[in-house]
């Protein structure tokens, strides 16, 4: 492989990984607060159609990202109200949210399919990225850098700030947090809203970063990969980064294999497509076998908070 091809692959991998990384970071924060929101895919689709319509009508990519975040946040509030205020089952509500998001985005997107928009260009001026090596560092759009900054920011927030400590405490032992005097429901609402906004932005990546048009279900299951990735990364932001790029690499391999690209096509592209899921299953099995090694899962994950008296 030529160096140009390798660089091209790296750039593709980073681009393909970015929506998964952003969505997974949001879900990581949500799960650390003890809530399992399986509606990531649905919130991403709502973000994707919002971003597409905004950029189609105004041409402003940053406004599109902002409104996609707002749309994702709004969608997550439905989930928050049902599971936090009404203590509905989180798994069922999350699945319903994905179905809702899929249907809603398809409805809102009617009449927009096959209409082109422009992609969000690189953040830095092209003079910086003339040499292929520089392209690896400076050749990306703002969303890619945003994702990387969020990895560090979320790590720092969880590890070093008092608010992050409270969030972890709520996810670890909701009853204790409540008895000390923290608002479990309040903290979880904020986390769910943050997760919704991140999923919205992740959805925006599809029309703004990857394919400049609207297609139904264009997120193609990436929201599910994001949910799996959080477990894969055992709820740690930097492992999440590594995992997201690894998954991105495998997905890019699938594309190359599909395109009949040389040695990769020896393995059927369906197998490449299945690899991220196989990897997740493998990791889950490994975690279950070594259960004495702290799995790091928030102890209250997925359990509704029901303070007795």
């Amino acid at each position, binding site marked *: 492989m030529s160096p140009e091809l390798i660089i091209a692959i790296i750039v593709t991998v980073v681009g393909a990984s970015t929506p998964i990384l952003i969505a997974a970071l949001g879900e990581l924060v949500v799960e650390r607060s003890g809530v399992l929101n399986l509606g990531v895919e649905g919130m991403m689709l709502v973000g994707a159609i919002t971003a597409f319509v905004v950029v189609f009508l105004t041409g402003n990519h940053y406004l599109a990202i902002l409104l996609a975040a707002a749309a994702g946040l709004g969608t997550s509030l439905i989930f928050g109200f049902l599971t936090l205020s009404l203590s509905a089952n989180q798994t069922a509500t999350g699945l319903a949210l994905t179905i809702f998001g899929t249907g809603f985005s398809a409805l809102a997107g009617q009449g927009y399919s096959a209409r082109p928009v422009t992609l969000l260009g690189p953040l830095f001026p092209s003079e910086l990225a003339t040499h292929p090596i520089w392209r690896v560092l400076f050749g990306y759009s703002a969303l890619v850098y945003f994702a990387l900054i969020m990895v560090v920011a979320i790590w720092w927030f969880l590890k070093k700030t008092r608010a992050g400590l409270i969030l*972890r405490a709520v996810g*670890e032992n909701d009853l204790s947090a409540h008895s000390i005097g923290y608002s479990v429901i309040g903290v979880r609402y904020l986390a769910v809203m943050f997760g919704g906004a991140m999923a919205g932005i992740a959805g925006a990546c599809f029309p703004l970063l990857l394919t400049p048009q609207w297609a139904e279900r264009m997120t193609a299951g990436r929201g599910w990969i994001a949910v799996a990735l959080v477990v894969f990364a055992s709820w740690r932001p930097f492992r999440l980064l590594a995992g997201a790029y690894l998954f991105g690499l495998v997905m890019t391999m699938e594309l190359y294999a599909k395109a009949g690209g040389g040695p990769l096509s020896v393995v059927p592209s369906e197998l490449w497509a299945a690899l991220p899921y196989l990897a997740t299953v493998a990791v889950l099995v490994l975690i279950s076998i070594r*259960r004495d090694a702290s799995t790091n899962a928030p102890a209250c994950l997925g359990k509704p908070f029901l303070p007795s008296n």
Partner: protein
Amino acid sequence: MPYRLELTGITKRFPGVLANDNVTFAVKPGEIHALLGENGAGKSTLVKMIYGIMQPDAGEIRWDGQPVVVPNPKAARKLGIGMVFQHFSLFDALTVLENIALGMDAKIPSRELEARIREIMGRYGLLLDPHRTVATLSVGERQRIEIVRALLLDPKLLIMDEPTSVLTPQEVEQLFDVLRKLAAQGCSILYISHKLHEIKALCDTATILRGGKLVDTCDPRQETSRSLAEKMIGAGLKDIVRGEGRTLGLPKLVVSRLSTVKTGHFDVPVDNVSFTVRAGEIFGIAGVAGNGQNALLDAMSGEVRGGDKDAITLDGFPLGLLDTTGRRKRGLCAVPEERNGHAAVGDFTLSDNSVLTARDRLGMVMMGLISSGAARTYTGKVIADFAVKALGPGSTAGSLSGGNLQKYIMGREILQKPSVLVVSQPTWGVDAGAAAAIHQALVDLAAAGSAIVVISQDLDELRALCDTLAVINMGRLSPARPTEEMSVEEIGLLMGGVHGATEVHDAVPA
């Protein structure tokens, strides 16, 4: 000098119950004040209102002479009220320092907080490493975190909710020293307990609650344990009645060199445990929680099986390779510590729960079909004989209070007349009247010739009930000795892992 805390006419109503009915009492500065009462007497509800977790329906709270409303725990801490909960509000996955920081309302840089924690620990002799993860600490150490957390706020009133139920006698002494030091500096202490000798040893005043009402305020040092207990339960206390001239029979249950494998990070396996229980004998196993009691019970009941058929024998018949059902058929029944979810299925009716453990011994299943009539009749008998407060055999196990469920479970096993009964924490969370009934039933079962093993953390219970005692520590069992030969101090040292010269003897009594 005004009272530190004054409660006047406090009333709290829950659907169907009056948890506190017009309760009035006061705590002086520097006083150690006991709040005494059985489970369900309303102690916890009362302190939750003082600490702002709940609001009274009627009545007034005065603090240093001023009427106050305590809307939430934060406001309580601001007034200078600290609380150490019975069930620790700790986060296992976080460090000691993080746990303490969570309980602080002010934002303190972690380095400064650590310095203050070390200062408090030094002053009161509470030893802890601030950077340890809570999951790796013993129960006594966890309690110290709660105490340090409360002391960091310089409280003027410290509420302790049943603090000693999980401690060794030596740890209890250390705790009392800390509390006396605090009181000498003017901090008032509200001490909730139902352990009478502790209250007599520690407290200046005792307020006694029964059924939500204030029964008496007295000086516990002027009372006897018996008179306090009678005020608490409102009736004469029954002693355990033992038959005259009882002699122990032949060895019935013989456990020899029983070991289990470590299965989880926080699991303590049992290591080469041997003991013999004779017909008619009640054999007690004392120990601080988490020293292998659960592994021992699982290995005895058959939930966890080893490879040695002779590790457990009943009347010489090897049980070591049999599963729970097989052991029950041979006459060995067991009651685990966790009653809801382990000893009983919460969503099942009591009748169905009876089928689960009594089906073979009492013929409740014929050719794969459950004889629900037999199950109902038997369950009805358990409910009647053990005074279980339940609507009937059709009530779900989960709808019963903890104490009533325990009475049902104990009754379900005892009425099967097992040759060997192994029980863990038979009276945990059960009020004094019901505990006495369970104790009497165990004594009667032994008198009928069964061998009984009682695993408990409650030394008073073991000393009152058992003929023979051994102590489990880190999965190893101390040599068994007659109860009357062992002093509380000696048991306490064994519980803390200090073995005397007796270490070298074989653990199997002759």
